[in-house]
Structures are given as structure tokens and as C-alpha cells.
């Protein structure tokens, strides 16, 4: 029995390892991102040489200059890959993390933009991740742009979205538009089209998102979960029925 989260983790790990993308030697993962964090740990436990900077670890966080160090690292070009989400994501890969209705979010107010307006432009690769895949989230045009998916000529920018992973499918992004790349179990070309508020390209035959391999599942349920327990105890309990206490004993 493969948990849906395990499939998302494995799908993100494959995107990280995509040989056609710029190398991901150093990956940073923001707060409250258990699935991207697990994908990074999976890549590392698979034996790939990658440096992980995980924010908001309660102990032993990687930074000694305070929280600005993540942004300084990105400014220096030392972070190859970052993850972003969005309360709204549109077909041009624009992200809205602020709100809907009149500024600053009189209809619905979201937490805020965090560092997205900077990280999205300073990082060569961004993997967008949002589990909820509905027309409410994947919209034709975001109500406001926290972080732009593309920039005008002459604006300094190192990269943009590589892909968007949702609870239903994987989209690739080519710098202009999304293309449906694979479908998770139970989804069809039609079900994804109905759940998506923006236009995207789709090949005639859409492959299924591969299941995690047995080796990947073993890593996820063992050493990856061990690494995750301190930061994401509730996630580990929910997906792997493992509590912190066992983890620390392991």
C-alpha cells in the first residue's frame, strides 16, 4: 500500500534528479514543507551528493547568520533549487500567497509572501508544490502576484519554475506555459482539465506518475522518516505511524 504522500515524494525526487535540468548540488527547503523535505532526503539517501539546508529545524539548523542567511545564500547563487507553493497559482506560474479580493486580501487573506518574491527569481530551479488541485487554487490569473513566474527582458532573474506537482498530477513548465507530464492514480486527462483553472498543453498520451520503487519505499519508511521526525512529527505520525520517541530510539 503506497501512501499518496509517498508517491508525491517520489515524483518530486525524480524532478530533482532530472538530468536535463541544471545541477542541484545545494537544495534549500522552507518551513512547513514535509513532502519536499522528504523528497530531498530521499535523493540524499539514494546516494546522490547533495547538500540540504532545511529551515526551521528546531535544533541544529544550518544557519549561523540568522534567517537572512538563506536569502543571502540565494543572492550569492549558492542555492540551486528551492520549493514554493501558492494559495493561487496561474498558468504563467505566477504565485499568490497574499490574498484574494481587494489588496491585502479582503475576501480571503493568506499568510503572506514569505521570501517568494526574491527566491523565485534568484534560484535557478524552483519546484512548485501544492497538494490541493482545484480551480480555486490553479486559476487562470492570480488575484495578485506575490512572486512572478516570468520577468521582462532586462530584469535580473536566474530561473523560474521547473515543474508543478499537485495531488492529481505533474506539470512541467517551459518558461511560458505548463504541460501536463503525468497523472497520479485515479486521474484522467479530463479530470485534471476539469480541476484546473488555467490553460495548459497536454500530449495525446499522458503517462502515469510512476510508483515509488520498493527501494525508495524502504528508504522513505526508514532513514528518511528518521531524518524527518524532529521537524515534522505530525507528518511522520500521519504517513508512517512513527512517533518522535521511536525515531530517537532508532
Amino acid at each position: 500500500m503506497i501512501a499518496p504522500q509517498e508517491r508525491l515524494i517520489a515524483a518530486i525526487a525524480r524532478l530533482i534528479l532530472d538530468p536535463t535540468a541544471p545541477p542541484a548540488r545545494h537544495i534549500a527547503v522552507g518551513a512547513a514543507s514535509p513532502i519536499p523535505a522528504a523528497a530531498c532526503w530521499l535523493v540524499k539517501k539514494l546516494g546522490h551528493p547533495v547538500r540540504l539546508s532545511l529551515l526551521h529545524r528546531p535544533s541544529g539548523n544550518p544557519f549561523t547568520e540568522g534567517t537572512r542567511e538563506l536569502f543571502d545564500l540565494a543572492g550569492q547563487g549558492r542555492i540551486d533549487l528551492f520549493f514554493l507553493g501558492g494559495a493561487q497559482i496561474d498558468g504563467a506560474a505566477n504565485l499568490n500567497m497574499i490574498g484574494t479580493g481587494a489588496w491585502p486580501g479582503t475576501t480571503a487573506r493568506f499568510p503572506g509572501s514569505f521570501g517568494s518574491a526574491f527566491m523565485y527569481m534568484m534560484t535557478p530551479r524552483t519546484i512548485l508544490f501544492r497538494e490541493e488541485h482545484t480551480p480555486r487554487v490553479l486559476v487562470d490569473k492570480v488575484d495578485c502576484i506575490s512572486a512572478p513566474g516570468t520577468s521582462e527582458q532586462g530584469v535580473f532573474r536566474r530561473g523560474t519554475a521547473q515543474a508543478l506537482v499537485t495531488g492529481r498530477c505533474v506539470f512541467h513548465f517551459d518558461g511560458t506555459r505548463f504541460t501536463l507530464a503525468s497523472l497520479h492514480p485515479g486521474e484522467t486527462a479530463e479530470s485534471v482539465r476539469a480541476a484546473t483553472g488555467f490553460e495548459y498543453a497536454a500530449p495525446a498520451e499522458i503517462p502515469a506518475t510512476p510508483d515509488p520503487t520498493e527501494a525508495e519505499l524502504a528508504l522513505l519508511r526508514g532513514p528518511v522518516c528518521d531524518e524527518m521526525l524532529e521537524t515534522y512529527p505530525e507528518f511522520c505520525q500521519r504517513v508512517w505511524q512513527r512517533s518522535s520517541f521511536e525515531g530517537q530510539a532508532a
Partner: protein
Amino acid sequence: MPHREIDQLAARIPDGASLALPPDNSLSPGALARALVRRGARGLRLIGVPVSGYATDLLIGAGCVASVMTSAVTLGEAGTAPRFTAAVKAGTIEVIDATCPAIHTALQAAEKGAPFMPLRGVLGSDLVAHRPDWKVIQNPFADGSDPILLVPALQPDFAAFHAVCADSQGNIYVGRRRELATIAHAAKCSLVTVERMVPGNLLEDELMAPGCINGVYIDSVAVAERGTWPVGLLDEYPLDAAHFREYATLARTDAGFATYLERFVHIDARVAA
């Protein structure tokens, strides 16, 4: 009089002052925020460095806040910040949205005594249009077109945070949470709660000094045991996740929030902890 020392510290922050606060993972002064609620502070202009959490949501809920400049308000794993969200919908607070590195950059400009600092990125975000205090100029060092954002220096009236300990010279120890040094350098006045006082001079100890902030920046220190609670303190005590969930649940409604204030703010929070 269990609150005496911290209530005196809170009394130093007048209504209408701008007050910079660290996020929930970085020595946020929970006890001081509760003291500000007890003193009935009004019109505070909060600054989240670079994001805001429990203390900000609590102060908003208690009606202490006129505006909040921040990159996000969140309770982390416990979800969205209910009193912030309610106040935005009700239009009772002004929200000045920023993005994390813009907050850091603005404080670093103040730290260096520079009137502004440039920041890459951000252009194309609607943040720019809603921040009339920001400017976009052509990079004077570039040959071709190269627009760049300039962020003005941000000098808060007050910085407030918790530290592990202080010595008699006012030097304080915050360990690796160096962003607190930036806030203390940038602010006009820094008020700090500590777990305990220590003898000697922290800056004479080569092992402790790298995690210290020089007393030259610190205006007042008050002892407040478990002063970050319900947030954790480095390796000394962890975040109280159960209390965060309880806060997040109660704060969903006005009545629940009133109950929270009654149970955890107007009585001795340290006993409850």
C-alpha cells in the same frame, strides 16, 4: 506580584510605537507580548522580522495593533493566524506586506547607517505597487537595462526579544540567532527578557562571545523564565505544540480568544506553562 519585572518592561513601550519582533522560531518574546496585552497597549506598529507568529496574532486579537509590516503571519504547523486573518477581513489593522529579504535589507541599511539598500528580485511582484516607500532605479553600474529595487532603511522604535541570559553589563546571549543582533543594531531601543542573569562578562568568554549581543545596544533587561513560551528556546526547551493547537483553536472566535486571554494572559502564564 509575579509579573512585576516584565510588566515594567512592557510599560516602556508607549502606545503608537513601532515594535520589531522575531518569528516563532527565533526567541520570540511571548511573555512580553502577554505583558503588553495586560497593560492595554494601543496603536502598536508591529514589524515581523521577517515573519510574524503567536505574539503578533495575540497582540492583534487584544486590540493592541494599528499596523503590521511583515512577510507573513502564521502559526506554523498549527495553521493560519486566526486573529490576524479576522482583523484583515474586518479592516481593523493596516497590513504592510513585505518579503523576507526586504525586511532584512531594510534593517541592515539601518544597521549600517545607510539611507537605503538595493535588493535583487521582487520586481514584477505586486508588492512593489503597494509599497510607495520602495523605489525602483536603473542600476548605476550596469551598461544595459537593469532595474533594481531600493528599500529604505527601517529603524524600529523598539526591538523586543528573549535571550538565554544577560550579564551585569547588559551583554546578552542569543546563540546562533544572529538576526536578533541585526534588530538590536537597527532599533532605537532594545528591550530583552532573559531566562537568567549570569556573573562575569560574557564578552570576555571566547566561547560565549560569538553568540552574544553587546550591551551597547540593549536598553533594558528583565528576567522572565520560559520567556519565549509557548515558543521554544534553542536547546533549553521545545515549542509547546499542544498549546499552539489550543491557541489556534480558541482564537478562531472572539469568545474563544477572550477565554484564552482570561486563562493565559491575565493570570500568570508561567504557572500555566
